[in-house]
């Protein structure tokens, strides 16, 4: 399948969003609100849930279902307070040695005046540093759109997984088309060139697992998480952060 078709599927109306996974994969989700500084960003949901008897912190970028909900959730594009809420949830998970599961589905971090005024760059940067040193396991799953900085802000993880028709890219294909090709019509070319499909990302060593979108995807994820998390939880903190560091350290590592 062409990369462009994958991107279209990742964005398709009716595709399950983060909350569907949260309720489909986990049990007894209890949502936690607010970043304790500014407000509560509805584009990012987080809370505590259970998975096979294990307490888990779940964080998801939520696009919303109905038009009204999409608007109230800003189409899944989080503001700085959303990323700060996620950071609070992650630090809390670290305190209680709960694993963290992030569900990523965003066209990108929000680009607006308020987002800049409240430090979108600073918020994402803080998440990256904290996640790279987090003394509890983190698995991030790309369930739809993995849009650039807004996606990696929740994906500095021990493992990154992706659904078959999700994508993960440095810039939106539209952005690349208009900047590199100077032609907004070259979106298909941009999709191919960016190598953003699940298969591309697996080949490039960016994602550890690709999940087929057939049958019961929720059950497949539940089983995979149930298998992976206990192993990571058993690792000493130092090994856990070392493994995460090396995962990213090797990307684009040149010969010394």
């Amino acid at each position, binding site marked *: 399948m062409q990369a462009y078709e994958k991107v279209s599927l990742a964005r398709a109306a009716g595709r399950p969003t983060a909350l569907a996974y949260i309720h489909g994969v986990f049990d007894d989700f209890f949502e936690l609100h607010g970043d304790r500084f500014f407000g509560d960003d509805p584009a990012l949901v987080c809370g505590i849930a259970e998975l096979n008897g294990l307490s888990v912190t779940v964080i998801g970028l939520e696009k919303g279902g109905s038009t009204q909900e999409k608007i109230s959730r800003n189409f899944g594009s989080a503001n700085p307070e959303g990323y700060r809420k996620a950071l609070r949830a992650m630090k809390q998970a670290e305190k209680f040695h709960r694993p963290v599961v992030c569900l990523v589905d965003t066209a990108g971090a929000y680009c607006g005046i308020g987002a800049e005024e409240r430090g979108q760059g600073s918020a994402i940067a803080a998440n990256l*540093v904290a996640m790279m040193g987090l003394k509890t396991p983190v698995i991030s799953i790309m369930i739809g759109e993995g849009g650039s900085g807004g996606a990696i802000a929740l994906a500095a993880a021990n493992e990154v997984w992706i659904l078959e028709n999700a994508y993960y890219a440095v810039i939106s294909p539209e952005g690349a088309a208009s900047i590199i090709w100077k032609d907004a019509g070259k979106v298909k*070319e941009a999709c191919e060139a960016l190598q953003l499909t699940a298969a591309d990302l697996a080949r490039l060593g960016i994602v550890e697992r690709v999940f087929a979108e057939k049958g019961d995807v929720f059950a497949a994820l539940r089983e995979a998480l149930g298998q992976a998390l206990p192993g990571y939880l058993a690792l000493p903190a130092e090994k856990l952060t070392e493994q995460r560091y090396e995962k990213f350290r090797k990307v684009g590592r040149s010969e010394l």
Partner: protein
Amino acid sequence: MLKKSSFKRPNNALEGGEAAAEKKEMNEGVCVACPACKRMLFLDELSEALNCCPHCGHHLRLSARERIALTADEGSFAELWPGETGGDPLAFPGYADKLKKAHKASRESESVVTGTCRVGGSPCALFVMEGAFMMGSMGTVTGDKITRLFEYAARENLPVLGFTVSGGARMQEGILSLMQMAKISGAVGRHSDKGLLYLAVLTDPTTGGVTASFAMEADIILAEPGALIGFAGQRVIEQTIRQKLPEGFQRAEFLLEKGFVDAIVPRKEQRSVLGTLLRRHERGSAYAGV
């Protein structure tokens, strides 16, 4: 009200950095027009004023080598990993050609120069991004050199001083560029955990994935006057919100007001301020016994 000039000026790599570089070349050897007040400036008067306009004070861009010469104590800079180049890992259309042009325009092998030096007598590890190399965009080599510098500094108990100028993660290396954000952040965190200082100076422009990672991760963040610093590009924001941006939006002074930089330091004061800040942290426990 928005000034006309704020639209004419390239905001980042993606918006005409190359055109700006070309223009400079055309005038090379004689004079340039100040991008802010438009007055013609003779190059020797400009270089005497550290590339700041003697009329309006606008800070014109500097090459990495010029900046090192202005910052490091004379003869103290020792480059680490010079000449390193990456390939074209995604075989991205047109990238090989762009790299060739970038080498030619900047006379650098990549968009960052790394090394060690002394500033006001204090030793530090130094990285300086090169705006003329694809507008300082962060590819895998950029990310790897900066990561290695933080690792080196952590081993050698050195503070890191970094100058940023960047349009963000380099599109032509795709997801591999994006990963450098997490990679560098990991190295910054480890360096920080050793109680070592990271001092950043954000220069015009610092945007995208660089702002959203190591530019904003320093213990002390300084900025040059008037520097454009932000996550999203101005055109992208205007298209998203469908309104004009307020004057001074995303400039260094705006970030100071909003609480995201510690101080704005004019170029002529930088050497002394950086030397003082490095010295203040030398007296701490970090270097002495560790």
